[in-house]
């Protein structure tokens, strides 16, 4: 994979970068959870990726560390895009990227709301799309597509008039 950014990242961080993949001309680096904030700081300050495009979560329930938090980054000066991922298990917590980019604020709240991934150091980590007090994390693979709320039983069967002959 030809990527000067990836090479620089390997040089600076060493074994914190666990793996890297390439697909359709896009480079992804998978970084260890302990070093994710350092990696993001280096990518922002030293490698010039000043724009956080997206931050989201992915659920891989068959993995031991089931959640992946994915960061999409953009270098506005060169137009280069880069993707960084980190794997986190249930109950573990990811350092918040709000100290680097203000844009991470609501995106981390949404990842918490939808997956239950906790971000440490976030100014206000509360539910954002679901209502406060909602139980469960909707985008997890074990959350049913039809939801968990009991269907409203508007007409009890005995109320439905039938033609009784």
């Amino acid at each position, binding site marked *: 994979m030809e990527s000067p950014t990836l090479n620089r990242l390997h040089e600076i961080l060493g074994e914190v970068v666990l793996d890297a993949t390439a*697909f*359709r001309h*896009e480079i*992804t680096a998978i970084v260890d959870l302990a070093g994710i904030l350092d990696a993001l700081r280096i990518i922002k300050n030293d490698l010039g990726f*000043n*724009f*956080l*495009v*997206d931050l*989201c979560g*992915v*659920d891989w329930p068959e993995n031991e560390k089931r959640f992946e938090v*994915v960061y*999409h980054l953009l270098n*506005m000066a060169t*137009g280069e*895009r880069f*993707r960084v991922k980190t794997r986190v298990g249930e109950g573990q917590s990811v350092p918040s990227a709000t100290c680097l*980019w*203000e*844009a991470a*604020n*609501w*995106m981390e709240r*949404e990842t918490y709301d*939808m997956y239950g991934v906790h971000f440490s150091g976030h100014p206000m980590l509360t*539910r*954002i*799309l*679901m*209502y406060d007090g909602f139980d469960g994390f*909707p*985008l997890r693979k074990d*959350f049913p*597509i039809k939801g968990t709320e009991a269907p409203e039983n508007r007409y009890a069967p005995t109320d439905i008039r039938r033609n009784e002959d």
Partner: protein
Amino acid sequence: MAPDRINISDRLQDDLPTEHMIVNMGPSHPATHGTLRLILELDGEIVVKTTPEIGYLHRGVEKLGENLTYHQFIPLTDRLNYLSAAMNNVGYCLAVEKLLGVEAPPRAQVLRIILSEFGRIIDHLVCITVNAVDLGAFTAFLYAFQQREKVYELYERICGARLTTSLTRIGGMYRDIDDEWVRDAKNVLPGIEANLKEVETLLTRNRIWLERTQNVGGISPEDAVNFGFSGPCLRAAGVDWDLRKNEPYLGYQNFDFDIPIGETGDVYDRYLVRIEEIRQSLRILRQALDKIPDGPVIVDDPHVALPSKDAVYGTMEGLISHFKFIIDGPIAPEGEIYSATEAANGELGFYIIGDGTGRPHRMRVRPPCFIIYQAMDKLCRGKMIADVVAILGSLNIVAGELDR
């Protein structure tokens, strides 16, 4: 002899205990576009803190995306930024085509540009004039919606629906257009240009508009990039970044157009940037409507697109292929892509993880106005309640895209 005048306010000002008032601009409010809730902490008339609350239109689009095939997801993309549905369709189909590794034929690409630019025009018309309505200028809204009706007619002729178009398919377009459509589309453009002049006459040098919108809600370019702004709000702040120029897609590099850049990023600059973007979109449309290449509008690959109806009704292979395609969906390779287009609000991105079946493992929509809306607190600090309304209107927060 007159008594000495006592200035009561001087004496009481320092001792008067005050506390901030919390006012709720509730989800159902005439000045919030869609169901948005703003909790304002006020010191008199000055806003001290703004807490936006969203999620009133959350429909679980991303969860549904994991359970539907790539084709079945197209109508859901209409309903993201419903003001310019065609742009969402185009953005989504480009993302899936990137994942599958196919490219739409040249005629489909130019058609997508034409329909996207019409979508951009109508989105900006709504944003500007609804912003004006919030501040009391109702006439511009009525004038602009006449032109929106004309574009609706064009959309209806091509796909049957005015608002939720579902125009594109993976690998191309749903249907082809004829010369009559091209002629009528060209006839719509002078009307939009004239109407834009009318809207500008009403607003651009209007004393009240200038007082209400200048120096309100400004943001510096560094802050705008830090907050993840994109689209007209970013360009109004002075940052030269437009995906149509910086990362061209669909052949935008073949057309001649400019990108308006603002200075201070305040509400007035955003208004001016949008007006100018409508003009530049008209410029692209004039060029594109003259140079539509001939050819098919959808790729001829049975793994990606439905076979034509005469093949389905006439041959056994066509029938089986149609059936398998509808049931299984286009089979995507294992891998992940991110694809972004310049929608009316900014960078609309789709991050799709394919897993070897016809349904994605993850369908993430990167909504531009979700990320822009985060900055609401910063933009409104120290302003008055009336300014909050002006700023909210200028950011073009569309609840469908915000909450998905």
